[in-house]
Protein backbone atom coordinates (compact mmCIF):
# COMPACT_ATOMS: atom_id res chain seq x y z
CA UNK A 1 0.00 0.00 0.00
CA UNK A 2 1.38 3.45 -0.90
CA UNK A 3 0.64 6.79 0.77
CA UNK A 4 -2.18 7.73 -1.60
CA UNK A 5 -3.99 4.43 -1.05
CA UNK A 6 -3.44 4.76 2.69
CA UNK A 7 -4.92 8.25 2.70
CA UNK A 8 -7.97 7.03 0.79
CA UNK A 9 -8.65 4.41 3.44
CA UNK A 10 -8.07 6.62 6.51
CA UNK A 11 -11.69 7.65 6.84
CA UNK A 12 -12.97 4.08 6.65
CA UNK A 13 -10.26 3.05 9.11
CA UNK A 14 -11.41 5.66 11.64
CA UNK A 15 -15.01 4.47 11.23
CA UNK A 16 -14.03 0.80 11.63
CA UNK A 17 -15.35 0.21 8.15
CA UNK A 18 -12.43 -1.71 6.59
CA UNK A 19 -12.08 -5.40 5.84
CA UNK A 20 -9.56 -7.26 7.98
CA UNK A 21 -7.15 -7.60 5.06
CA UNK A 22 -7.27 -3.91 4.14
CA UNK A 23 -6.95 -2.85 7.76
CA UNK A 24 -3.85 -4.99 8.18
CA UNK A 25 -2.33 -3.58 4.98
CA UNK A 26 -2.95 -0.07 6.21
CA UNK A 27 -1.48 -0.79 9.63
CA UNK A 28 1.65 -2.27 8.03
CA UNK A 29 1.99 0.94 5.99
CA UNK A 30 1.41 3.13 9.04
CA UNK A 31 4.07 1.24 10.95
CA UNK A 32 6.64 2.25 8.35
CA UNK A 33 5.32 5.69 7.36
CA UNK A 34 5.55 8.52 9.85
CA UNK A 35 3.94 10.95 7.41
CA UNK A 36 0.71 8.95 7.17
CA UNK A 37 0.74 8.21 10.91
CA UNK A 38 0.79 11.93 11.72
CA UNK A 39 -1.94 12.65 9.17
CA UNK A 40 -4.16 9.90 10.56
CA UNK A 41 -3.66 11.12 14.12
CA UNK A 42 -4.52 14.70 13.16
CA UNK A 43 -7.59 13.63 11.18
CA UNK A 44 -8.79 11.63 14.18
CA UNK A 45 -8.20 14.65 16.42
CA UNK A 46 -10.10 16.85 13.98
CA UNK A 47 -13.14 14.56 14.11
CA UNK A 48 -12.97 14.37 17.91
CA UNK A 49 -12.79 18.15 18.31
CA UNK A 50 -15.94 18.69 16.26
CA UNK A 51 -17.70 15.72 17.80
CA UNK A 52 -16.96 16.84 21.36
CA UNK A 53 -17.71 20.53 20.88
CA UNK A 54 -20.73 21.63 22.90
CA UNK A 55 -23.28 23.71 21.04
CA UNK A 56 -23.43 27.28 22.30
CA UNK A 57 -26.60 28.78 23.76
CA UNK A 58 -29.16 30.12 21.36
CA UNK A 59 -28.89 33.89 20.86
CA UNK A 60 -31.58 35.55 22.98
CA UNK A 61 -33.59 36.91 20.07
CA UNK A 62 -33.54 33.56 18.23
CA UNK A 63 -34.74 31.77 21.36
CA UNK A 64 -37.49 34.32 21.96
CA UNK A 65 -38.78 33.96 18.39
CA UNK A 66 -38.67 30.16 18.60
CA UNK A 67 -40.84 30.09 21.72
CA UNK A 68 -43.16 32.73 20.31
CA UNK A 69 -43.65 30.58 17.20
CA UNK A 70 -44.34 27.52 19.34
CA UNK A 71 -46.72 29.46 21.56
CA UNK A 72 -48.70 30.91 18.69
CA UNK A 73 -48.86 27.82 16.48
CA UNK A 74 -49.02 24.89 18.86
CA UNK A 75 -51.19 26.22 21.67
CA UNK A 76 -54.12 26.77 19.29
Amino acid at each position, binding site marked *: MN*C*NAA*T*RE*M*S*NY*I*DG*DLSVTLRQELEVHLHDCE*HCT*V*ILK*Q*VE*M*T*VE*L*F*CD*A*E*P*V*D*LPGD*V*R*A*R*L*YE*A*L*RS*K*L*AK
Partner: protein
Amino acid sequence: MKTVFLPRQSVKPRAKTVSYFVSPEGALFHLKRGRQRCGVLCATFMSERIGNWPLGSAVYPQAGPIANPLTAPNPHKTPSTVAKEDEHLLVAAAKGGDLSAFNELVSRYERKIFRLTMNITRNREDAEDAMQDAFLKSYSHLKDFEGSSRFYTWLVRIAANEALMRLRKRRPNQFSLDEPIPGDNDELIPRDIEDWGPSPEQRFGQTEMHDILSGVIDELEPSFRTVFVLRDIEELSTEETAKIVGISVPAVKSRLLRARLKLREKLNRYFRQGGVH
Protein backbone atom coordinates in the same frame (compact mmCIF):
# COMPACT_ATOMS: atom_id res chain seq x y z
CA MET B 1 -54.91 22.51 31.17
CA LYS B 2 -53.15 25.62 29.93
CA THR B 3 -49.52 25.15 28.97
CA VAL B 4 -46.95 27.87 29.32
CA PHE B 5 -43.83 27.70 27.20
CA LEU B 6 -40.85 28.76 29.21
CA PRO B 7 -37.24 29.15 28.18
CA ARG B 8 -35.00 27.20 30.52
CA GLN B 9 -33.61 30.34 32.18
CA SER B 10 -37.05 31.06 33.60
CA VAL B 11 -37.26 27.74 35.40
CA LYS B 12 -37.89 28.14 39.12
CA PRO B 13 -36.12 25.76 41.47
CA ARG B 14 -38.94 24.63 43.77
CA ALA B 15 -42.20 22.93 42.92
CA LYS B 16 -45.48 23.27 44.77
CA THR B 17 -47.69 21.00 42.68
CA VAL B 18 -47.15 17.87 40.67
CA SER B 19 -49.17 16.57 37.75
CA TYR B 20 -48.35 13.27 36.14
CA PHE B 21 -48.62 11.20 33.02
CA VAL B 22 -48.40 7.41 33.25
CA SER B 23 -47.67 5.06 30.37
CA PRO B 24 -46.92 1.33 30.34
CA GLU B 25 -43.22 2.20 30.18
CA GLY B 26 -43.03 4.58 33.11
CA ALA B 27 -44.28 7.85 34.50
CA LEU B 28 -43.66 11.52 33.80
CA PHE B 29 -44.16 14.09 36.56
CA HIS B 30 -44.56 17.78 35.81
CA LEU B 31 -43.50 20.00 38.69
CA LYS B 32 -45.22 23.36 38.94
CA ARG B 33 -45.11 26.41 41.10
CA GLY B 34 -48.32 28.30 40.56
CA ARG B 35 -48.82 28.35 36.82
CA GLN B 36 -45.14 28.06 36.04
CA ARG B 37 -43.55 24.75 35.19
CA CYS B 38 -40.33 24.27 37.11
CA GLY B 39 -39.14 20.81 36.18
CA VAL B 40 -39.93 17.35 34.93
CA LEU B 41 -39.19 14.06 36.61
CA CYS B 42 -39.26 10.78 34.76
CA ALA B 43 -39.41 7.28 36.16
CA THR B 44 -38.97 4.08 34.23
CA PHE B 45 -39.79 0.70 35.67
CA MET B 46 -36.19 -0.34 36.13
CA SER B 47 -37.15 -3.00 38.69
CA GLU B 48 -38.71 -5.05 35.91
CA ARG B 49 -35.42 -5.16 34.09
CA ILE B 50 -33.07 -5.89 36.97
CA GLY B 51 -35.26 -8.07 39.11
CA ASN B 52 -37.04 -7.43 42.38
CA TRP B 53 -35.52 -4.79 44.59
CA PRO B 54 -35.78 -5.65 48.27
CA LEU B 55 -37.27 -2.85 50.28
CA GLY B 56 -35.20 -0.99 52.81
CA SER B 57 -32.24 1.34 52.43
CA ALA B 58 -29.99 -0.91 54.47
CA VAL B 59 -29.73 -3.24 51.51
CA TYR B 60 -28.06 -0.48 49.48
CA PRO B 61 -25.97 1.45 52.01
CA GLN B 62 -24.03 3.13 49.19
CA ALA B 63 -27.17 4.68 47.76
CA GLY B 64 -27.34 8.45 48.09
CA PRO B 65 -29.66 11.21 46.92
CA ILE B 66 -30.51 10.95 43.24
CA ALA B 67 -30.05 14.14 41.26
CA ASN B 68 -32.78 15.03 38.81
CA PRO B 69 -30.95 15.14 35.45
CA LEU B 70 -33.49 17.53 33.96
CA THR B 71 -33.02 20.17 36.61
CA ALA B 72 -29.27 19.73 37.05
CA PRO B 73 -27.21 22.97 36.93
CA ASN B 74 -26.13 22.32 33.36
CA PRO B 75 -28.64 19.88 31.89
CA HIS B 76 -27.27 20.08 28.36
CA LYS B 77 -23.99 18.71 29.63
CA THR B 78 -25.72 15.49 30.60
CA PRO B 79 -24.98 12.88 27.96
CA SER B 80 -27.48 11.44 25.56
CA THR B 81 -27.70 8.32 27.72
CA VAL B 82 -29.74 10.35 30.19
CA ALA B 83 -31.95 11.61 27.41
CA LYS B 84 -32.50 8.10 26.15
CA GLU B 85 -33.83 7.04 29.54
CA ASP B 86 -36.80 9.34 29.51
CA GLU B 87 -37.07 10.60 25.95
CA HIS B 88 -39.72 8.04 25.04
CA LEU B 89 -41.81 9.12 28.01
CA LEU B 90 -41.71 12.74 26.93
CA VAL B 91 -42.58 11.71 23.38
CA ALA B 92 -45.46 9.54 24.59
CA ALA B 93 -46.80 12.41 26.67
CA ALA B 94 -46.42 14.85 23.77
CA LYS B 95 -48.23 12.42 21.49
CA GLY B 96 -51.05 12.45 23.97
CA GLY B 97 -51.33 16.21 23.61
CA ASP B 98 -49.12 17.27 26.52
CA LEU B 99 -47.54 20.46 25.20
CA SER B 100 -45.30 20.90 28.22
CA ALA B 101 -43.70 17.52 27.48
CA PHE B 102 -43.04 18.68 23.93
CA ASN B 103 -41.72 21.93 25.33
CA GLU B 104 -39.22 19.93 27.37
CA LEU B 105 -38.04 18.17 24.20
CA VAL B 106 -37.63 21.53 22.47
CA SER B 107 -35.76 22.95 25.42
CA ARG B 108 -33.47 19.94 25.46
CA TYR B 109 -32.55 19.97 21.78
CA GLU B 110 -32.91 23.61 20.68
CA ARG B 111 -29.18 24.32 20.82
CA LYS B 112 -28.18 21.20 18.93
CA ILE B 113 -30.81 21.68 16.25
CA PHE B 114 -29.81 25.32 15.76
CA ARG B 115 -26.16 24.27 15.48
CA LEU B 116 -27.18 21.72 12.85
CA THR B 117 -29.24 24.12 10.73
CA MET B 118 -26.57 26.81 11.11
CA ASN B 119 -23.83 24.39 10.08
CA ILE B 120 -25.70 23.39 6.94
CA THR B 121 -27.02 26.77 5.81
CA ARG B 122 -24.31 29.08 7.25
CA ASN B 123 -27.00 31.74 7.19
CA ARG B 124 -28.59 32.80 10.45
CA GLU B 125 -31.99 33.68 9.02
CA ASP B 126 -32.28 30.38 7.14
CA ALA B 127 -30.99 28.46 10.15
CA GLU B 128 -33.57 30.03 12.42
CA ASP B 129 -36.43 29.37 10.00
CA ALA B 130 -35.30 25.80 9.46
CA MET B 131 -35.11 25.19 13.22
CA GLN B 132 -38.56 26.64 13.86
CA ASP B 133 -40.14 24.66 11.04
CA ALA B 134 -38.37 21.49 12.16
CA PHE B 135 -39.85 21.73 15.66
CA LEU B 136 -43.30 22.65 14.35
CA LYS B 137 -43.27 19.81 11.81
CA SER B 138 -42.02 17.33 14.36
CA TYR B 139 -44.97 18.21 16.57
CA SER B 140 -47.55 18.00 13.82
CA HIS B 141 -46.11 14.67 12.61
CA LEU B 142 -45.54 13.15 16.04
CA LYS B 143 -48.26 10.59 15.39
CA ASP B 144 -46.10 9.24 12.53
CA PHE B 145 -43.08 8.75 14.80
CA GLU B 146 -43.04 5.06 15.55
CA GLY B 147 -40.15 5.01 17.99
CA SER B 148 -37.89 2.70 15.96
CA SER B 149 -35.13 5.31 16.35
CA ARG B 150 -34.49 7.97 18.95
CA PHE B 151 -36.74 11.00 18.77
CA TYR B 152 -33.64 13.17 18.45
CA THR B 153 -32.44 11.24 15.38
CA TRP B 154 -35.88 11.64 13.82
CA LEU B 155 -35.77 15.37 14.62
CA VAL B 156 -32.31 15.68 13.07
CA ARG B 157 -33.64 14.20 9.81
CA ILE B 158 -36.46 16.74 9.71
CA ALA B 159 -34.16 19.65 10.58
CA ALA B 160 -31.51 18.57 8.05
CA ASN B 161 -34.13 18.40 5.31
CA GLU B 162 -35.44 21.84 6.23
CA ALA B 163 -31.92 23.28 6.20
CA LEU B 164 -30.98 21.60 2.91
CA MET B 165 -34.15 22.86 1.27
CA ARG B 166 -33.19 26.43 2.18
CA LEU B 167 -29.58 25.93 1.12
CA ARG B 168 -30.65 24.67 -2.31
CA LYS B 169 -33.13 27.50 -2.67
CA ARG B 170 -30.59 30.15 -1.78
CA ARG B 171 -27.87 28.77 -4.05
CA PRO B 172 -29.68 27.01 -6.92
CA ASN B 173 -27.15 27.83 -9.59
CA GLN B 174 -23.93 27.32 -7.72
CA PHE B 175 -23.97 23.58 -7.36
CA SER B 176 -26.09 20.60 -6.60
CA LEU B 177 -25.45 18.55 -3.49
CA ASP B 178 -26.01 15.35 -5.40
CA GLU B 179 -23.74 16.01 -8.36
CA PRO B 180 -20.43 14.13 -8.62
CA ILE B 181 -17.42 15.82 -7.06
CA PRO B 182 -14.81 16.67 -9.69
CA GLY B 183 -11.32 15.34 -9.11
CA ASP B 184 -12.46 12.23 -7.29
CA ASN B 185 -9.43 10.34 -8.56
CA ASP B 186 -6.90 13.03 -7.72
CA GLU B 187 -4.07 12.30 -5.37
CA LEU B 188 -5.12 13.04 -1.82
CA ILE B 189 -1.89 12.88 0.14
CA PRO B 190 -1.66 15.98 2.35
CA ARG B 191 1.64 17.81 1.93
CA ASP B 192 1.69 20.12 4.90
CA ILE B 193 2.25 18.12 8.02
CA GLU B 194 3.49 19.83 11.10
CA ASP B 195 3.54 18.92 14.74
CA TRP B 196 0.42 20.15 16.54
CA GLY B 197 2.25 20.01 19.83
CA PRO B 198 0.25 19.64 23.06
CA SER B 199 -3.46 18.93 22.85
CA PRO B 200 -5.20 21.86 21.10
CA GLU B 201 -7.96 21.64 23.69
CA GLN B 202 -5.42 22.56 26.35
CA ARG B 203 -3.90 25.38 24.33
CA PHE B 204 -7.12 27.16 23.41
CA GLY B 205 -9.99 28.34 25.60
CA GLN B 206 -13.50 27.09 24.94
CA THR B 207 -14.63 30.28 23.23
CA GLU B 208 -11.50 30.52 21.12
CA MET B 209 -11.80 26.88 20.10
CA HIS B 210 -15.45 27.40 19.18
CA ASP B 211 -14.49 30.33 16.95
CA ILE B 212 -11.74 28.31 15.28
CA LEU B 213 -14.01 25.32 14.56
CA SER B 214 -16.83 27.56 13.37
CA GLY B 215 -14.42 29.45 11.09
CA VAL B 216 -12.90 26.41 9.43
CA ILE B 217 -16.20 24.60 8.86
CA ASP B 218 -17.55 27.80 7.30
CA GLU B 219 -14.78 27.57 4.69
CA LEU B 220 -15.84 24.09 3.56
CA GLU B 221 -17.90 23.74 0.41
CA PRO B 222 -21.54 22.93 1.27
CA SER B 223 -21.40 19.49 -0.36
CA PHE B 224 -18.57 18.46 1.97
CA ARG B 225 -19.81 20.38 4.98
CA THR B 226 -23.27 18.82 4.94
CA VAL B 227 -21.93 15.26 4.88
CA PHE B 228 -19.39 16.03 7.62
CA VAL B 229 -22.03 17.63 9.85
CA LEU B 230 -24.48 14.75 9.50
CA ARG B 231 -21.89 12.00 9.89
CA ASP B 232 -19.38 13.37 12.38
CA ILE B 233 -21.29 15.92 14.43
CA GLU B 234 -24.78 14.42 14.39
CA GLU B 235 -23.40 10.88 14.15
CA LEU B 236 -25.94 9.67 11.61
CA SER B 237 -25.10 6.48 9.75
CA THR B 238 -23.63 6.57 6.26
CA GLU B 239 -26.90 5.18 4.90
CA GLU B 240 -29.04 7.78 6.69
CA THR B 241 -26.77 10.57 5.49
CA ALA B 242 -26.96 9.27 1.91
CA LYS B 243 -30.75 9.22 2.09
CA ILE B 244 -31.05 12.75 3.49
CA VAL B 245 -28.55 14.34 1.07
CA GLY B 246 -29.76 12.30 -1.89
CA ILE B 247 -26.43 10.76 -2.88
CA SER B 248 -25.01 7.24 -2.90
CA VAL B 249 -23.27 5.59 0.07
CA PRO B 250 -19.86 5.59 -1.74
CA ALA B 251 -20.35 9.30 -2.46
CA VAL B 252 -20.98 9.96 1.25
CA LYS B 253 -17.78 8.11 2.14
CA SER B 254 -15.78 9.96 -0.48
CA ARG B 255 -17.04 13.36 0.64
CA LEU B 256 -16.53 12.53 4.29
CA LEU B 257 -12.89 11.62 3.66
CA ARG B 258 -12.29 14.82 1.74
CA ALA B 259 -14.12 16.92 4.33
CA ARG B 260 -12.01 15.46 7.13
CA LEU B 261 -8.78 16.00 5.21
CA LYS B 262 -9.72 19.57 4.32
CA LEU B 263 -10.66 20.39 7.90
CA ARG B 264 -7.39 18.92 9.16
CA GLU B 265 -5.52 21.08 6.69
CA LYS B 266 -7.41 24.21 7.75
CA LEU B 267 -6.93 23.46 11.45
CA ASN B 268 -3.22 23.03 10.77
CA ARG B 269 -3.01 26.82 10.41
CA TYR B 270 -4.04 27.21 14.04
CA PHE B 271 -2.67 24.14 15.73
CA ARG B 272 0.85 23.92 14.32
CA GLN B 273 3.49 25.21 16.66
CA GLY B 274 3.63 28.99 16.30
CA GLY B 275 0.48 29.00 14.14
CA VAL B 276 -2.12 31.76 13.75
CA HIS B 277 -3.68 32.86 17.05
